[in-house]
């Protein structure tokens, strides 16, 4: 879809920029991932504000997570999360079987080592969105075969 292209190209360029500055000093790698994540966080905060303008109050944490999996994901990636699992103790696993930002990279294990940097921004996106809904969290991601990936959300109790 044409209106997705600008975001995808921009996202790639942001990653290029951040990882190029990472090459200059190896030790900075962690900090650069943080930069990407922080950018996502800001964007997530902004998006959720505009997205929840007309929705009613959420019942509970699970309700919020469902909103992230359905409406938020559809807004950003044009599809829903394929599977949401929880241990009912504050950990949620969101699985996307065809993650938009990976689906054009590879369908398998090729280039797998590059996959993580394509996920940091989205981790931040989710964390930022949750944060503006009053949920403090840590979001991580893992990929074993592209383009499927899992995001793990750990809710931090206040």
């Amino acid at each position, binding site marked *: 879809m*044409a*209106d*997705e*292209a*600008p*975001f995808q*190209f*921009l*996202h790639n*360029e*942001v990653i*290029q*920029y951040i990882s190029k*500055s990472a090459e200059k000093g190896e030790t900075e790698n962690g900090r650069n991932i943080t*930069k990407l994540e*922080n*950018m*996502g966080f*800001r*964007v997530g905060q*902004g*998006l959720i504000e*505009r*997205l929840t303008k007309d*929705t009613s109050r959420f019942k509970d944490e*699970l309700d919020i*997570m*469902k909103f992230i*999996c*359905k*409406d938020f994901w*559809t*807004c*950003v990636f*044009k599809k*829903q*999360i394929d*599977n*949401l*699992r*929880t*241990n*009912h103790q504050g950990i*949620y696993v969101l699985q996307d079987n065809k993650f938009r930002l990976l689906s054009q990279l590879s369908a398998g294990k090729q280039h797998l080592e590059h996959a993580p940097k394509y996920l940091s921004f989205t981790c931040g996106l989710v964390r930022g969105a949750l944060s503006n809904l009053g949920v403090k969290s840590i979001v991580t991601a893992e990929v074993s075969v592209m383009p499927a990936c899992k995001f793990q959300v750990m809710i931090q109790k206040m």
Partner: protein
Amino acid sequence: MWSTACLFHHDGMIAFQPTSMRNSELFTLTYGALVTQLCKDYENDEEVNKQLDKMGYNIGVRLIEDFLARSSIGRCQDFRETADVIAKVAFKMYLGITPSVTNWSPAGDEFSLILENNPLVDFVELPDNHSTLIYSNLLCGVLRGALEMVQMAVDVRFVQDTLRGDNVTEIRMKFIKRIEENLPAGDE
């Protein structure tokens, strides 16, 4: 212990259909986050402008392929036709706006794109200490990079910007030269 949440029991309809308007917000906000980051990373606005242009160029050289594949537009006969395609097809397709094309130079090698509303600056307010920042400079790079891939060297710059108090946003495009196809040496 682990269970699948009943995410999709009453599946079928999503609460709302996200519009392309919302998707452009994603782009706008991401771009904003990028500019913010660049302003932190570089000491002066000039460097930020340069970096934005460079990133735009990288996007442009890729975006042109996407554009040609989608629009099935052939080679332009002259610069006027190029201007029309950029304003009416490309801007419309990717940003959902149609800038007007004006201020042609007598020689027909220079024109302006007037943007009534620039989606990149939707939620932006420039702080006073960034008076020389060309916020949307990415666009210049995109245009330059894309046109270079169709053998046109073009100078692209912002001459007016509503973010800096002007009434309109104006991008000036100046045709420099036609880039010759590089044939390998000895190959006719």
